[in-house]
């Protein structure tokens, strides 16, 4: 247990990302898939902030990138939920395994 630094945060973010990934592969409900995606996005934000904090402290790119990612994530979540609701109306289910018409 050393003093937390860049590598600690990167490790945390990698773990969080892989958690999200695990969720994305195992879950079947579309809303839970969306949650997993949000986890992954957060881990990316953490990464950016960590670099901004430890590697280029005099610059602010990481901060702004995170801000924009949050904004995009909000838009994406809203759209995803609109799609999910629409899918629910047409299929009476939001299971990804059942929404597979878009195949060969």
């Amino acid at each position: 247990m050393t003093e937390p630094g860049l590598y600690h945060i990167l490790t945390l973010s990698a773990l969080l990302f892989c958690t999200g990934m695990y969720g994305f592969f195992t879950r079947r409900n579309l809303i839970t898939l969306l949650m997993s995606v949000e986890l992954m996005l957060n881990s990316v934000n953490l990464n950016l902030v960590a670099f901004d904090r430890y590697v280029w402290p005099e610059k602010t790119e990481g901060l702004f990138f995170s801000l924009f990612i949050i904004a995009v994530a909000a838009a994406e979540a809203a759209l995803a939920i609109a799609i999910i609701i629409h899918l629910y109306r047409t299929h009476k289910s939001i299971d990804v395994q059942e929404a597979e018409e878009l195949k060969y």
Partner: protein
Amino acid sequence: MSGSDLVFYILALMTLCFGVLTVTSRQIFRAAVYLLFCLLGVAGIYFWLNYQFLAAVQIVVYAGGIVVLILFSIFLTQQSGEKLPVPAVSRKFFSALAAFCALALVLVSVFRFSFAESGKRSALVSMSQIGEKMLSPGEGGYALPFEVISVLLLAALIGCIVIAIKTKPDAR
């Protein structure tokens, strides 16, 4: 170990635990609440890193916006009391394997690479600085992405309405 370090470890642990719970919980409503806590944990880390504004945005947008949105959509699409199905063991195994491989790859490459850490502690970026940069068209300003994001949000807004709008049965 100083108090500050301890705070970090607690926050990291909390974030991870709630993250894992989010992806494993069988009750979708609970999963959403776990996600909320996980996001709050991330916000805590932002605070710990001295990024107050970002932490505030994280709480407002994620905790206050997206999670609530998710909760609403759960209400709209889920029958209460139904549990999510348990994924098959093989699926769990291979997903975990894939995630682990990715993790291993990332961690290996991260630790093999030595980042040029600058020893300086960054000064607190004040809210007014962020605001000025956000709207500055000059060098180091983010006026263009800001505008683009605004258009994107508008498009998303309209798109959501178009997709989710209820069509009358006879209009089809």
